[in-house]
């Protein structure tokens, strides 16, 4: 658990997690990790967390930290948008950073951390397409949120790009991009969505279905639901694998490492750490931070993938291309392989 009773002295960075708690092996965990990283860099930084059991806890949790004299308060997720904005307006001197959310109303003392995950997901899609034995890969989401769909859209783009470049016919199941580009404001698309971020059973069943349809790699964008995919891969046996999201699967979940071939990471840790350090250095500025491949705000991390050195080289090249903007991550730019 968190640290011991607060002392107003010294610099204090605090995080209010949403109902997922700091053990969700997803962005609550990553955000907390970001605080720890910051403490690594500068041990004089005190850190603390509060997890919320309900939306009604957000406001009081934030207030509790204000009373404890936290210098910067990190909040996680769109649900805390309202509470954060309210608190921010009530106390303009209090610094806030909110993870993975585009605030409805901007405020000077709130830094919104957002991530163009489709860039790294593009690489993930390319990797999976290239390493798939069956020529079928699949993805599914927790709920059809733009933050979720953005991963899937990038993933599909990556697969299609692979097919186009290598005249391959790798199919991708589970997500069909809608017309138009995918932005954090709006990322159109339809496909398989579990309906929540917790029901492992459903995740396992959908994954089993995908496997039954010939897929051998699955890319779940659904928080702990993804663990169901891992279970399914274990049962389906060798040759089946999972590409993980948000935070490195082999770190958050060592035991399962061999089932993860890679992780499309959302750079929550570095961005949160950066926010804290800037505040510590007194250089904090409100506004929006966009995580990209370029600034490490999103990245493809290899786990147990069988990818060859040459493939990794190609992917490195693609990374450059995306950073420079020469390669688009919009799936609609590439012809898809019809199912």
């Amino acid at each position, binding site marked *: *658990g968190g640290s011991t009773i607060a002392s107003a002295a010294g610099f204090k960075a605090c995080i209010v997690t949403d109902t997922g*708690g*700091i*053990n969700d092996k997803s962005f609550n965990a990553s955000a907390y990790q970001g605080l720890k990283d910051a403490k690594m860099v500068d041990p004089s930084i005190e850190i603390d967390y509060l*997890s919320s059991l309900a939306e009604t806890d957000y406001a009081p949790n934030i207030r509790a930290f204000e009373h404890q004299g936290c210098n910067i308060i990190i909040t996680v997720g769109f649900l805390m948008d309202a509470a954060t904005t309210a608190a921010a307006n009530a106390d303009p001197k209090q610094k806030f950073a909110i993870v993975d959310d585009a605030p409805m109303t901007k405020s000077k003392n709130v830094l919104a951390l957002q991530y163009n995950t489709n860039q790294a997901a593009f690489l993930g899609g390319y990797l999976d397409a290239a390493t798939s034995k069956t020529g079928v890969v699949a993805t*599914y989401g927790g709920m059809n949120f733009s933050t979720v769909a953005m991963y899937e859209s990038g993933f599909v783009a990556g697969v299609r790009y692979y097919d186009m470049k290598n005249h391959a016919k790798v*199919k991708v*199941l*589970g997500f*069909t991009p809608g017309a138009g580009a995918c932005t954090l404001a709006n990322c159109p698309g*339809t*496909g*398989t*969505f*579990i*309906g929540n971020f*917790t*029901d*492992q*059973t*459903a995740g*396992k*069943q*959908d994954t*089993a*279905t*995908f*496997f*039954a*349809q010939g897929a051998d790699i699955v890319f779940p964008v659904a928080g*702990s639901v993804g*663990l*169901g995919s*891992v*279970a399914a891969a*274990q*049962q*389906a*046996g*060798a*040759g089946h694998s999972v590409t993980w999201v948000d935070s490195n699967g082999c770190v958050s*979940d*060592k*035991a*399962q490492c061999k089932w993860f071939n890679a992780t499309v990471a959302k750079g929550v840790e570095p961005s949160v750490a950066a926010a804290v350090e800037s505040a510590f250095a007194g250089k904090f500025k409100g506004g929006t931070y966009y995580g990209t491949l370029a600034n490490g705000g999103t990245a493809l991390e290899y786990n147990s993938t069988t990818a060859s050195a040459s493939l990794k080289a190609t992917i490195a090249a693609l990374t450059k291309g995306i950073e420079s903007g020469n390669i688009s991550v919009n799936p609609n730019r590439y012809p898809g392989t019809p*199912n």
Partner: protein
Amino acid sequence: MSVETVEVTKALKQPHGRSRVIAGIIVGLGLFVALVFGLGSSGRAKSQFTFSPVNLSSNAPWHLGALTVNTRGWNVVLGVLIIALGTEVWVRRPRAPMLRFGLSSIIFLFALLFWACRTPGPSQIPFVNLTATLAGSVGIAMVLMYGSLSGVLCERAGVVNIAIEGQFLGGAFFGSMVVSVTNSFLYAALAGALFGALLGWLLAFLAIRYMSDQVIVGVVIVTMMASLSSYLNLQVLTPYPNFNLGNTASTTGIPLLDKIPVLGPVLFNETWFFYLAVALVALVSFGLFKTRWGLRVRAVGEHPKAAESVGINVARTRYRNVIMGGAVAGLGGVAFMATQGQFQPGYTSGLGYVALAALIFGRWKPSGAVVASILFGLSAFLANGLQSYSVPVSSEIIGMFPYIITIAVVAGLIGRVRPPAADGVPFKRS
């Protein structure tokens, strides 16, 4: 007297009113299938059945190709089939109309799948894999079997065990810890069963010794386990992640049998938790209805005073059964964990309560519980499976299906099936 007996058996037909309602609903389903899924789809549309199992390593020597059928024709046939079931209920008023209802809803879901995977059509997936579907359902069905079997043991002795969900959670939690440490599912199973038994004892202790309201105690045990497991998850599993490695049990195929097409991979290539469940069902079934033990248990559940008057120790019998029931439910939790992997707070998502419904559906008989579990398992799996076909129904609505079916079944049944007479009634030693 013998005359009366005859009359009674005659009288056991269901009352008109309700059978007709059920029949109406079934026929409605059938019409919907025939019209929407059948005639609704274009005449050219085709749907595919495939049979090859997912796990290629245990792939069978056989290879069944895909079965391609005309969507419209096939669904019309299925629709007519359902309608037939409905009319049978209407006319014959059979004793188990809800069984017909269960079958109809399964057929309905299959028809829906066929319709969803039709080509040309919106779905990316042009086929339904029967083997995978059945195999997946068996996973859930197994857990439900453990749950409802636990229910049978408790309620036949006259104690309502509504805490099954809690025993699932407890079993899953400790099972997951033990297996993570010892890497042996045997120990995990023992730990889970032990903890389940402990919860069973708690229920028995309060319900029998202190005559507390069994339903209340049961529900509170569930909430207690929910909060306790979530608490321990944060206090123990977070700091020590290798207490929750979440390795799943491997399947062990039964030689030869697992080579049978379709059935092989579904029934004879399972984890030993599944085989154990089947064995337990057979065992309890035999015990309850053939042996002295069973006769006495049922007497206690039907008329405890009478049992006591012939020197049967009601309290002891109930303790024994409720504790056994708890152990079985705990096992169920481990079995669940063994197929789902890593423990998450509240990840049994109400299966324990569905198991109760299965128990009622199965008329407090182990054999009935099996049938019910399979029906519920299938419906739950199909409902989830739907999400991978882009059906024009939002996933939230689809998610409701299994629970809606459960309610329908329970609503259709209670008052017609007869629970043990003293079920849930505390016994005061005169």
